[in-house]
């Protein structure tokens, strides 16, 4: 999981990660708005991230976003079409959070850890 360098956290619990990617938690502790970036639903990296790091299925996340978007109770995350686009968007968007494969992480973004199981 990676964030824009200004995001005021270095590690988060799995529950918070879920709340962020489910578009429920919309700001960081310091009040900066959260901007969530994901790859398309069909991307194997997206599916793996959901399952392994969030402990949920991509289709569950899709249901949650659709419920919010089409009932007027929330927004959907921004979709980056490629890993490179994801990195570029995160690096230039304050408050951004997303995910990248290890090999694609460089100094323009900051990597953070998900504490398994904990909050």
């Amino acid at each position: 999981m990676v964030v824009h360098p200004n995001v005021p956290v270095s590690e988060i619990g799995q529950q918070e990660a879920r709340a962020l990617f489910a578009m429920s938690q919309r700001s960081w502790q310091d009040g900066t708005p959260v901007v969530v970036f994901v790859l398309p639903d069909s991307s194997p990296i997206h599916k793996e991230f959901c399952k392994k790091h969030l402990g949920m299925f991509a289709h569950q996340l899709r249901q949650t976003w659709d419920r919010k978007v089409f009932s007027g109770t929330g927004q959907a995350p921004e979709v980056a079409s490629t890993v490179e686009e994801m990195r570029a968007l995160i690096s230039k968007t304050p408050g951004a959070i997303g995910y990248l494969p290890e090999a694609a992480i460089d100094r323009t973004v900051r990597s953070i850890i998900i504490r398994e199981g904990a909050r």
Partner: protein
Amino acid sequence: MITLVRHKKAWFPAVSLVFCYCHNSCADWKDTFQYHGFISQNFVLTSENNFYGDSENGSFDFTEAGFNVSLRPLNRLSLAAQVLYRRAGELEDEEVRLDYGVLDFTALGTTEARAGLRLGRVKNPLGLYNETRDVAFTRPSIFLPQSIYFDRTRNFALSADGGQVYGEYESSIGEFSLRVNVGVPTADKALEDVLLGRNRPGELRGKTSYLGQLLYEYESGLVRLAVTAASAHASYEPGKNDFLSDGDFLFQPYIFSAQYNGERLSLTAEYAVRNSDLKRFGPLFPNISAQSESYYIQGAYRLTDEIEAMVRYDVYYVNVHDRYGGEFEQRTGRPGFSRFAKDWTVGLRWDITPNWMARAEYHRVHGTGWLAGTENPDPRELDPDWDLFALELSFRF
């Protein structure tokens, strides 16, 4: 006929005020703007009885389209609105309406807890599917289980003009959320037809109504449990030469919902009881008090990431004290089988791309309990055993 429901005019000054205020303080509020939409075209074929148009001859008279915009000009304030177009045979007039238009203030927003207030036209969280019932992608099938999600009186249950207080709490055992809506529901001609037998000279008007839903989600939706209770009101304003007087309608549904969402398998069940009372419509229209009962059990299995198969059994009784309509038939001469329905459904969903989806489904129905009088005006022509086949093509963005 196309009816355009008017926007709440008072909103626009408020909206522009918010924009001016944050023009300098948050230069990137424009980046929070989003728009989404969908369009679905359906085909319905029935062996007997009509549903969504002249379905006995095959009906394409079922189209749904929506377009929404949302914006978060301030961290604690967001705006969202959706316009909905719907064409639904003789179930209701073809219309374009404001589906929702909400100003959302987040009063509290921490990692564990969130709370706030939504004002405007707010969707009713009635059971698991009501809020997004018109969006094919969010439904489990082309037709929602009609025992709970009636299409013939949908607008009354759909939304309310007023507000919603919401709170969410994430505990170590899962997330709890509570929503309470207070507002005025839409009472349209379709409701009048169901309640009063046909379109009457006067008009039904929605009155202040209440709804509450408590939802528990384990592991971000792996298991979802919900209880919904509502008390909805409407009153009748008699027209000229009207033999009805200014009666009241009270509708109180209680819905219990449970859902499991595994990687491949999803199981859903909902049970509802509803009390409805029609009172004081005058000497020629006796008071009616009825308790109806509905439930369904549904399973869906994702064979691949693109193909999902579903099966459902859905049961509806108009009156629990006369489940098969024997007394009703004796009293009114109308068929007893119009007082219940048992519906077996099987369906297939194909997600062709993330934006395109197609579906096919087949229903074997016994009873005509949830069919509309507007589509089947002559009760003698109703058939208690009928088949329904439907196709759907839907696009989203």
